[in-house]
């Protein structure tokens, strides 16, 4: 008989194991980039110690939008209609501004049918994390081009894309999102740090994550294949996220590393790989993103970050208690108020 106790599973700062952040079994294709993103989401929420009950997962329609079923089963989830995730999320956050909102969308769901809601969501800077699982094709309908497909990219059938892509990051930066990043489902470390930083931000976080479609868009000639992205990824910086609850901080060199204090007190350290890049400069950020297209680069990293702009909830000046659960004594004015209103109408 063993005399030592069985090893306890590792827990995070709120006492949950990583298993508490798991969801249903994925039904996506083997090797799909979306599954890797789901894993990173699980890790990030676990490591940050976010209670899954405080989280909502909202999505539209498509392969990407199915993925919320495959992580964080203890969170409420809403798989809504095609291209309309932003409005559903907006309503939910207005009803309960205390919840952590995670929107999962795809390139078709966002850049085609949902572009209207996407751009207006960015303008509002609603506190939420918006992830585009971006593979350049419609997977569920078997491989048509989406609006983020690059010029000259080739479909399996040999069809060449001859329309310019919509750069969702450039749009998001221009329109008012306050944390805009691009990453790659295959870049585990960068994506994980970016997601953790996203959880520390109070405003719209828009992450375009290139997520290759192994079934319809992973071939020679595609600019969204694993090989292409690995060969062309151009990280702006080496990301290192230091949560506010970490007891031990590591020194950093301000000369080579930019330190950003996030809303919750955490630190985002960006070790510069490109010397002059300043992610707090909007104009420069858009310029650099547009240049990356000409250079055939997949530019990744935190492209833009603004920790001072007010978010939508601040602007509305809403009461602290969630609107959803305000008692009737607060939401129904008194009889005297009705009398006053009636008198004014006589």
């Amino acid at each position, binding site marked *: 008989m063993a005399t030592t106790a069985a090893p306890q599973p590792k827990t995070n700062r709120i006492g949950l194991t990583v298993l508490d952040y798991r969801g249903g079994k994925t039904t996506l294709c083997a090797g799909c980039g979306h599954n890797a993103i789901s894993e990173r989401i699980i890790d990030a929420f676990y490591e940050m110690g976010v209670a899954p009950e405080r989280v909502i997962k909202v999505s539209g329609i498509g392969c990407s939008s199915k993925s919320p079923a495959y992580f964080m089963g203890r969170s409420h989830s809403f*798989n809504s209609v095609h291209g*309309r995730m932003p409005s559903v999320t907006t*309503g939910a956050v*207005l*009803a309960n501004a205390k919840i952590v909102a995670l929107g999962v969308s795809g390139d078709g769901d966002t850049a085609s049918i949902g572009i209207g809601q996407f751009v207006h969501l960015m303008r509002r800077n609603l506190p939420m994390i918006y992830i585009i699982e971006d593979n350049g094709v419609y997977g569920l309908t078997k491989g048509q081009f989406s609006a983020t497909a690059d010029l000259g990219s080739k479909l399996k059938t040999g069809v060449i894309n001859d329309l310019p892509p919509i750069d969702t990051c450039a749009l998001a930066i221009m329109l008012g999102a306050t944390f805009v990043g691009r990453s790659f489902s295959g870049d585990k470390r960068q994506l994980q740090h970016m997601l953790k930083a996203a959880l520390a931000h109070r405003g719209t976080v828009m992450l375009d994550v290139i997520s290759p479609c192994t079934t319809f868009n992973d071939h020679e000639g595609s600019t969204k294949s694993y090989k292409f992205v690995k060969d062309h990824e151009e990280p702006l910086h080496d990301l290192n996220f230091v949560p506010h609850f970490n007891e031990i901080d590591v020194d950093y060199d301000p000369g080579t590393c930019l330190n950003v204090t996030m809303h919750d007190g955490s630190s985002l350290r960006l070790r510069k790989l490109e010397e002059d890049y300043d992610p707090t400069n909007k104009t420069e950020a858009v310029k650099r993103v547009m240049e990356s297209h000409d250079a055939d680069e997949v530019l990744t990293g935190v492209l833009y970050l603004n920790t001072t702009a007010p978010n939508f909830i601040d602007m509305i000046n809403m*009461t602290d208690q969630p*609107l959803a659960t305000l008692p009737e004594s607060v*939401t129904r004015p008194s009889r005297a108020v009705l009398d006053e209103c009636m008198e004014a*109408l006589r």
Partner: protein
Amino acid sequence: MATTEFAVHGAEHGAVRGPVVNDFSIQVATVNGSGSQSANTVLLRTIFQMGVPVSGKNMFPSNIAGLPTWYTIRASKKGYIARKKEIDFLVAMNPETAREDTMSLASGAAVLYDEPLKLNELRSDVTFYTVPYDKICAAVCSESKLRKLVKNMIYVGVMAQLLKLDMAEVEKALRKQFAKKVKAADLNWNAAKAGYDYAASSLTKADPFTVERMNKTTGMIIIDGNAAAALGCMFAGVTVVTWYPITPSSSLVETLIDYMKEYRVGDDGKATFAIVQAEDELAAIGMVLGAGWAGARSMTATAGPGISLMAEFAGLGYYVEIPGVIWDIQRVGPSTGLPTRTAQGDIEFVAKLSHGDTRHPMLLPCSVAECFSMASDAFDLTEQLQTPVFVMSDLDLGMNNWMSEPFQYPEKPQNRGKVLTAEELERAGGFARYKDVDGDGVGYRTLPGTDHPQAAWFARGSGHNENSGYSERPDDYANNMDRLAHKFETARTLIPKPEIVCNDGNEVGIIAYGTSHHAVVETLDQLQGEYGVKADYLRLRAYPFTSETHDFVAAHKRIYMIDQNRDAQMLQLLKLDIAIEEIRKLRSVRHYNGLPIDARSITDDITTQEGK
């Protein structure tokens, strides 16, 4: 002219009539953007303040300035407040329409016109009064750019003198209208007085129409339906409001914003609500459902074109079972249609709004009081039934001023429906979102943010089983749809019951809903008084139909359904709901020219069908 279909030339051709007291209609024909609305409101309020039942209807173009507009005011000692088809007194201010407006009057009417228009040359069977507006204006208003506005108040003064209105009441109404703008009030009051003095010294009363004091408006209020709905929503406890501007619904939310800022901001200066102008109606209803899912009392207001866009989300709300209130202030469709004219044109579409098998409850307010009270009904129902609820108002109700008894404070506590708390979940040991535990087709739900590991459920517009898990199983799909159908049966027992205005065993029954009510009340009197036809009357207050309506159909030989649309939409819905042998009883009266429905048209239609 544009607002009466044809002239009814009476037998009293040019004959002198006895006095007609408190029973006539005035039509002010003007140009939109000319500021006549204030003058017309003063005229309306003056009659109201004199205790005479009154209604006002604005027939305006889809335009900001420069096109013809008509405002009709009806005074009725009997309390009829529907539009009167015949115009008794025309105030012709618009040179463009003045001739046509005059020619379409019935014999015996009166016309007040601007001197240069020379309308008196057109006919000999109506009474003409001429007013030299420019001369009077110049005397009371030194600023030439204000004269266009002040001109309108001159006809108020002239009409006051001709109709024997109390000038003290005119002043009271005028000062209420201009409220804190004292300078504007003084200027306008001088104009009204000048008009009055001119009429007293230069015009000889030759028409029979006058106003005498009554006591039928004591304690009453004047408000438009959209403002009444806004008040109703505030007292119903709405917390999330989204909208996209569209005529004729915009003023509902704009008024709500004003009220909420006044009465729903806490002592700490923080709002107990969120109001968002969305990028379109798709987003507006998406936000409503997102907020409803998360537990807020949420709503939007729109009109037909917005409803069309909302079809996709309406289906989602039905299938995922999420509350949300949608106000449809109906206007004339299809497509852009007549954006500033009234109709009940969305009834059939909204009843089944979405692809796939879908049914939605609709509330059918007929009055400003019901716009107020049905707001609470709508929020209670939507949360009880966990499905979107539509309130079907219309432009006539929403944008026109109506007199009303003061609104009753909502006595019933808010019914927030079946929502499980963390403690209840703990006791129950979990839940199945779509399981029909209580036999009413309505499952239990939890709200996002509920602090319990078993609280979460997966809201999805795709096929699902009782546990909200993804399912394409034939039995799961069919069982779920059957439960939804059963839930709609539950709705029948919870929605406002019809108002049976009279049920005296007559052969003829009339069914109407919404603003048609006011015309039908008058039609009942016309049918009996003029044709000896006695009819029973049931007013629908909600859809689906309830047993009272089925019984009413069964109890009558001929049923006339009044619809303000071409295709007899409510009649079509009723057909689906009654026994085949009852269908042949149904007859249709339809009104669909964009103008508010009037009693005479209904009476004529029914008597023709009755062979009278």
